[in-house]
């Protein structure tokens, strides 16, 4: 019962984190499941979003503008990876690693050399000291705001995938020959996908930082694995349910992933063991997926 009560006490925080990482997972869904691109850029673009948003809050920017700026910074990171991969023909994994490595220093630069930035509790963030947050019941304000953000992004993405550009993005991951046949440069479509994905990842990092009112230079370590775990849990669970949109599956995957990690901690593991739990969980899911029969790869892709 101790385990259960510990888990339940932590549940609101777990849900909040799950929702924040759901935004990250939506970004990784685009690179991993749609573009089939193992994009390590995210380990740098997640903290990039954090440092941009916190620096701007410290400058007195409006929290929403600070989010937007973070997303734009993430878009630039995605653009860099895309250009390196497509125009300079560097392997996908290496392109991401190069930009991720560079971003570590860039993030420190943006933070003027400090590894830790804090925003005071009295400052205006998305979750505090603004008219909307003040109007909401105090205990549920964070959760409500996060649900709104995640749902808004989910519906935006769902809509995007039904547009002409969205079709093209889906096509390039599915069978890039079709994109070439449509007289479109498949490389440019890939770059666009990386731009969108990394702006979502940076946005997630920005929300994360506004939530905790801090940026820490190491906060990006393991971002890809964490996001991938969420994506794969969601997609594996809803593989047979054609009616469930992939975006919904991924959001639920993120919530479940966070719940499993906090359950493991409630069982007595130290918070420091979290990465180990993540790794074990991720391995478990992958192995399970293997046993159930790996999803068929489409020919020609």
């Amino acid at each position, binding site marked *: 019962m101790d385990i259960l009560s510990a888990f339940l006490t932590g549940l609101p925080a777990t849900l909040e984190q799950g929702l924040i990482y759901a935004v990250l997972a939506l970004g990784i869904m685009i690179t991993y499941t749609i573009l089939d691109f193992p994009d390590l850029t995210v380990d740098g673009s997640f903290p990039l979003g954090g440092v941009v948003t916190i620096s701007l809050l410290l400058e007195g920017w409006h929290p929403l503008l600070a989010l937007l700026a973070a997303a734009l910074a993430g878009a630039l990171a995605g653009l860099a990876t895309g250009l390196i991969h497509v125009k300079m023909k560097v392997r996908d994994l290496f392109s991401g690693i190069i930009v991720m490595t560079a971003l570590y220093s860039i993030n420190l630069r943006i933070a003027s050399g400090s590894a830790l930035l804090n925003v005071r509790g009295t400052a205006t963030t998305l979750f505090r000291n603004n008219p909307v947050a003040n109007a909401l019941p105090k205990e549920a304000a964070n959760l409500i705001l996060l649900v709104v953000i995640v749902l808004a992004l989910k519906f935006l993405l769902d809509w995007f995938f039904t*547009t002409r550009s969205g*079709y093209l993005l889906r096509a390039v991951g599915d069978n890039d020959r079709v994109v070439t046949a449509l007289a479109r440069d498949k490389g440019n479509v890939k770059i666009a996908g990386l731009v969108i994905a990394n702006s979502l990842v940076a946005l997630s990092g920005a929300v994360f930082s506004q939530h905790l009112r801090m940026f820490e230079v190491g906060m990006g370590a393991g971002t890809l694995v964490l996001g991938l775990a969420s994506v794969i849990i969601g997609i594996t669970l809803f593989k047979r349910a054609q009616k469930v949109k992939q975006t919904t599956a991924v959001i639920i995957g993120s919530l479940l992933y966070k719940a499993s990690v906090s359950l493991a901690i409630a069982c007595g593991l130290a918070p420091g063991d979290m990465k180990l739990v993540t790794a074990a969980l991720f391995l478990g899911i992958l192995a399970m997926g293997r046993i159930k029969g790996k999803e068929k790869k489409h020919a020609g892709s």
Partner: protein
Amino acid sequence: MLEVKSLHKVYNPGTVREMCLFEDFSLNIGEHQFVSVVGSNGSGKTSLLNILCGSIPVEGGQVLMDGEDITNQKEHVRNRRIGRIHQNPAMGTCAGMTILENLSLSDNKTKRMGLKQGTDKNRVAAYKQLLAPLGLGLEDMLNARCGSLSGGQRQALALVMATLTPVDFLILDEHTAALDPKTAETIMKLTDRVVREKNLTTIMVTHNLRYALEYGDRLLMMHKGGVVLDKQGADKQKLRIEDLLGMFNSISIECGN
């Protein structure tokens, strides 16, 4: 009109596996001509198609489209005027997308991409009208994913997609080879009808000598990067399958097969 002039193509240049395929190879394909190309493996048929479409680079020579030098033009740019169907039916469609989405994609080929709705609901009736004459029932399953279709259905859809927007050239790369004989026959008839209706300049590579004789108005036999037989019009009609087979065999014996 498609033309290649004194083409040079070398595979694996500078290595021990260096292989010169085309050496000063020239070919002219007239406007609205339907050319079937036969030849043994390694004779250069598919390489020729890849060179025309810009899928592989050349070491020398020129590729001309209606007199314009397109040797260095990128593949996707050439595709504005070219429709191509591959041997593997999976290559022409997106497996994870529905028939309707695939058709919509092709329909947007000449349009600006942007954020307009991918599928134009007003076009659905027109799509059904295009699919119905195929006789494969595709018009009743617009929302089925292409990955769930049979090879013949996917190839038929690929044909419709490749010619949905106006193109001038159709490139067929053994497009019936992976299909069962009956489906192959259906697809071949469909192809012929589309080519005639749209007046397309067509190059069809095939291993089926009968198709090469029956369809098209010019026949080429290729061997070791050269054309060893080129018949058109009345001359082509006089050709019999035995003649072709005889020639094919003599070539093969020469190669030691």
